[in-house]
């Protein structure tokens, strides 16, 4: 026979636990997601491929709580994002660069910057290089240095990978890392940040560039002029090749679209951005 005191204390613990769980659930509801409750509809998102991890995570959280909301996320690149939102094909067009004045005027775009992202030069993990200076980088991308032998490694050609015309990552990288120098004609063209990562992880002699949020163990990030493209260095500004990540809408956002943008800019949305390797702006 148990003592009444023990039973009581067990009971009390149970009640505490229950209260705790319900509070936790209530907290999750009240933390930006509750604005979506009872809402119905579709949010269509397209464009920048660097944004995709953040968008996916946010969409997953929103859709799990609210099965009546469906959010579709497509890639295509910054150019596609701006064009599609401008023509009303999607609700939110992502871009990894600022929209140009011309684009803003023509489509009446509103920009919402939600994170800062570094752009890192990446190599295959088999490649012994983890450091380069700006000059070497420019020479490699322009094709002036075209063999790893010149760099003191194996006698194999350097395979340069670049991104397609629509890429915001490419525009920023070209401007800030290559000083607008030409990229070699033999460069292979890749269509998204994700595809760039897999291309480099499969090619021991490849070199490419990618949104810093996408870096994982399958590729090595190069320290440029002695500065690694880490979150800290990008935040401090010592790693210079960085850009804002933007969500764009045509005119002021309304309804679900506005809620989604508010959610990304809320504390919770910013936490997602941080967890995915980007620097939240708030």
């Amino acid at each position, binding site marked *: 026979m148990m003592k009444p005191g023990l039973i009581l204390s067990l009971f009390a613990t149970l009640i505490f636990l229950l209260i705790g769980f319900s509070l936790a659930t209530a907290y999750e509801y009240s933390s930006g997601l509750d604005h979506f409750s009872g809402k119905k509809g579709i949010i269509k998102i397209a464009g920048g491929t660097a944004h995709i991890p953040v968008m996916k995570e946010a969409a997953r959280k929103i859709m799990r709580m609210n099965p009546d909301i469906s959010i579709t996320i497509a890639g295509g690149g910054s150019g596609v994002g701006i064009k599609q939102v401008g023509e009303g094909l999607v609700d939110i067009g992502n871009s990894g660069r600022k929209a140009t004045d011309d*684009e803003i005027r023509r489509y009446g775009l509103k920009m919402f910057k939600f994170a800062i992202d570094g752009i890192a030069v990446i190599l295959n993990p088999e490649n012994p290089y983890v450091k380069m200076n700006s000059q070497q980088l420019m020479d490699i991308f322009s094709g002036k240095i075209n063999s790893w032998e010149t760099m003191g490694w194996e006698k194999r050609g350097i395979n340069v990978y670049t991104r397609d015309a629509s890429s915001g990552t490419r525009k920023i990288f070209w401007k800030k890392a290559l000083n607008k120098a030409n990229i070699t004609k033999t460069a292979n063209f890749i269509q998204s940040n994700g595809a760039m990562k897999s291309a480099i992880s499969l090619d021991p002699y490849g070199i490419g560039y990618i949104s810093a949020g996408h870096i994982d163990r399958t590729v090595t990030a190069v320290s440029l002029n002695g500065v690694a493209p880490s979150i800290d260095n990008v935040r401090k500004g010592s790693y210079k090749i960085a850009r804002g990540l933007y969500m764009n809408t045509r005119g002021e956002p309304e309804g679900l679209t506005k809620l989604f943008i508010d959610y990304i800019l809320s504390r919770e949305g910013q936490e997602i951005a941080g967890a995915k390797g980007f620097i939240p702006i708030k």
Partner: protein
Amino acid sequence: MQPFTEKCVEKGLLLSTILSGSITLCILFFMVIFSLPLFEGGQIDQFIRLEWNPYEGDFGILPMMVGTGLIAFLALVIAVPFGLGCSALISVFAHGNFSSLLRKIVELMTGIPTVIYGFAALFLLVPMIREIFQRGTGMCILSASIMLAILILPTIILFMSDALNSVPKSYLDAADALGATSAQKLIYVMIPSAWSGMISGLILATGRVVGDTLIALMIAGNAIQVPKSLSDSGRTLTSHIALIIASDYESLEFKSIFLCGLILFIYTTLTVFGLRLFRYLKIIGDR
């Protein structure tokens, strides 16, 4: 006097023929209209050049034209011998269940989506080609041609084997009576008589190989250069359109893709007519 329903059916069929035929013409018309501004004011020579560098105002699409031609040609060169061999095996050398099993497998191959081929090639073929040549990325015109050849093989095999099967039995009997072996029958009787049907398969395959976008986009490397060797990467007109379509509507870059479309159209039309002419001359010559 035809019954009313029969007339209705006839008119209905006519309508659908006109509709599908006119869509092709409409697309051609659309391409011409949109690329017309490029022809005015002598701007056209700006596009038929080797340099593509939109930041500096170079919009030459010549490398893509060469790329499409080379990749398509290589794919056909690889696919035709294999196609001929497989169809001969199915229609002549193999018998009964084995033959129909082979045919079933080939029919199954037609259903595989292009993206699967591209994906498989990216992980299996590309690293192999890279190590064989010891240079480049492995994403090159040879990889793309090999995959395109595999893509069009079923079309070629099925058409050729149908053509071989439709050779009149009396011809075969005559060959048998003369004591011909299977190989002799194939070379001297069946192929000459099935020629026209086999060319039809080639026409369809050519159309597909020139028009396919995804395989070239995924594994040809998309470099803007005229490929000088099999292990160089190149870009086709189709993947060029896919890569550029996201750019600004007002830019010359975007306008140039209508020209690419028009050239693609002309490419396919020319090859189809060329093969048709070849078939026609062959038939005339046989008489």
